[in-house]
């Protein structure tokens, strides 16, 4: 009889290291980055493994330089990525805007930390707006994937490269200090071969063909408008085809919790306990923060009596949720900020308090609770 493998082929992996190794196995050819807590182990892993494999690793002088190195390597048509945390993502925004308009594929990992400002190094989800809505000047959106476990961090990193190349776009893997720092058993993907061919648009030297130009400069108003229309058409295609989410226990739910990433995972524990206490509550966990899962939210908002949004922020995704329910049901919010991670019990208290008020007659107005002091009691 074969020996039993208690981990079933999994390894005990730290989130940051798992993401780095997943990217390498997805055929990453170049990594450029700058140290920042709580993602630094990712860069450290790259610094060892990439040279071992004969691939490119370079520690840049700043996040400003790192993103422009990424931009350059992406123009050469190779798989390239960087990783950072909020303060570094802010510095990358200039480059991100150029990359978005130039339509070169790039993967960026954001292991979110407390803010604003220098903040701290504990987990938050307060870069939601930055990643989904304002990752640079001008009109564009990036695909944003939000893992809630180390396994998902691995899987979404591999997916990120495929999506980046499919749409020639920026793809963020949006974790937080919890996802980056925690260790849990997870299965790494098999090693893919590094691609040796280059896309026909890449800057490889104009040998036997017309020259290729990669730019975000279009001086004519109507020319730039047509570029914008092309970008928006692509973004609409992404909205139509790339929505990902998880639903749990929503079939008979009176209360719908909406939470992503780490918070989505903690909410599951609270929801199971609330179910044991007889409350019909379910979860919608957006996996793509952009494109946001508006369609399932629309359907669910027709069936549930109330929605509770839980985030590690002062309330960012809640705005998308409110937008998506058309005022059909009250949308409540519970958030912790500053790097404080909510305990399952806190979320449970919110659910139970909300359950006790479901039979109250509707007030006729959109009821909202904002701020970390909120409760539904």
């Amino acid at each position, binding site marked *: 009889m074969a020996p039993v493998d208690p981990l079933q082929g999994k390894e005990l992996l730290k989130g940051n290291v798992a993401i780095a190794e997943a990217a390498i196995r997805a055929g990453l050819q170049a990594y450029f980055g700058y140290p920042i807590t709580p993602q630094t182990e990712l860069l450290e892993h790259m610094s060892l493994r990439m040279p071992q494999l004969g691939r490119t690793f370079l520690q840049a002088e700043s996040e400003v330089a790192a993103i422009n190195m990424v931009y350059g390597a992406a123009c*050469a048509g190779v798989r390239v990525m960087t990783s950072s945390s909020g303060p570094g993502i802010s510095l990358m925004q200039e480059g991100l805007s150029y990359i978005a308009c130039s339509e070169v594929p790039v993967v960026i990992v954001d292991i979110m930390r407390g803010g604003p400002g220098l903040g701290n190094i504990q987990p938050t989800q307060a870069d939601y707006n930055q990643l989904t809505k304002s990752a640079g000047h001008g009109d564009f959106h990036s695909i944003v994937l939000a893992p809630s476990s180390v396994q998902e961090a691995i899987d979404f990193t591999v997916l990120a490269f495929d999506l980046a190349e499919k749409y020639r776009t920026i793809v963020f893997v949006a974790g937080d200090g919890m996802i980056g720092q925690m260790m849990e058993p997870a299965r790494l993907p098999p090693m893919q071969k590094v691609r040796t061919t280059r896309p026909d648009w890449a800057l490889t030297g104009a040998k036997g063909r017309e*020259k290729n130009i990669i730019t975000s400069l279009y001086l004519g108003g109507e020319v730039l408008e047509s570029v914008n229309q092309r970008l928006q058409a692509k973004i609409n295609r992404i909205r139509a085809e790339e929505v990902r989410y998880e639903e749990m226990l929503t079939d008979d739910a009176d209360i719908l919790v909406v939470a992503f990433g780490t918070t989505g995972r903690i909410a599951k524990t609270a929801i199971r306990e609330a179910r044991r206490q007889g409350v019909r509550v379910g979860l919608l966990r957006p996996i793509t923060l952009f494109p946001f899962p508006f369609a399932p939210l629309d359907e669910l908002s027709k069936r549930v009596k109330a929605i509770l949004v839980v985030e590690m922020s002062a309330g960012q995704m809640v705005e998308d949720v409110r937008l998506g329910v058309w005022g059909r049901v009250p949308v409540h919010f519970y958030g912790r900020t500053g790097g404080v991670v909510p305990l399952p019990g806190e979320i449970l208290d919110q659910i139970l308090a909300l359950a006790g008020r479901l039979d109250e007659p509707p007030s006729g107005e959109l009821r909202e609770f904002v701020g970390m002091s909120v409760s539904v009691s």
Partner: protein
Amino acid sequence: MEEQWVEQVVYQRPKSLSKVPTHYCPGCTHGLIHKLIGEVIDELGIRERTIAVAPVGCSVLLYNYFELDGAEAAHGRAPAMATGLKRVQPDKIVFTYQGDGDLASIGMAEIVWAATRGENITVFFINNAIYGMTGGQMAPTSLPGQVTRSSPMGRDVEMTGMPIRMAEMLAELPGASYVVRRSVHDIRTIKESKKAIRTAFRVQMAGAGFSLVEFLSSCPTNWGLTPYQSLDWIKQNMVPYYPLGDYKVADIVKDLK
């Protein structure tokens, strides 16, 4: 025997330059420096493996004027972008072409670090002591007392500091292999410029590290001078503050045959 007259081509546009008019002002020496670079690329036979990285500034449309693969960098970030392009395809020849605002002001960190790493790229630095594209504001290289649209009483060095000498500064970095300053205000300096461009590319082709040629270049429009007066202004005003010469020629460069 009857004399035969055969027409011979004695001069033509370099193959590395596109057959398009440039947007440069009459008398501006950007076009001349483009031509010198194009000629050298042709002569070295590297057109099909050379990639140009354009800056933000007057030469922002540079990729339209060269028959090369080209990219448009963010303001000052060309050396970082070139680093990315070169590191993943070391067999290509990658050059940036940057003005004084781009390289010496907003892009100071990127150029210093590209030189520090001995990045195997070539940088052409166009110093015309003014922001041309935005209409003639004070540059990091504007001369003391120089009147510009943002120093209308003349550059006050008590307030802004002295103009920065990039070639001298970068030459101090151990990673830099070839750093020189040239001009294009007369036939002799133009010829010397072309030689330096050639050496700079050969440094990169040999994998010998970071190479940079600074050019003193004219801006008749924003200096408010005629093209001829502008060339004289370079000679009379810029050359004394920015002496021409070789600031760093590493041994590995001297050994290049």
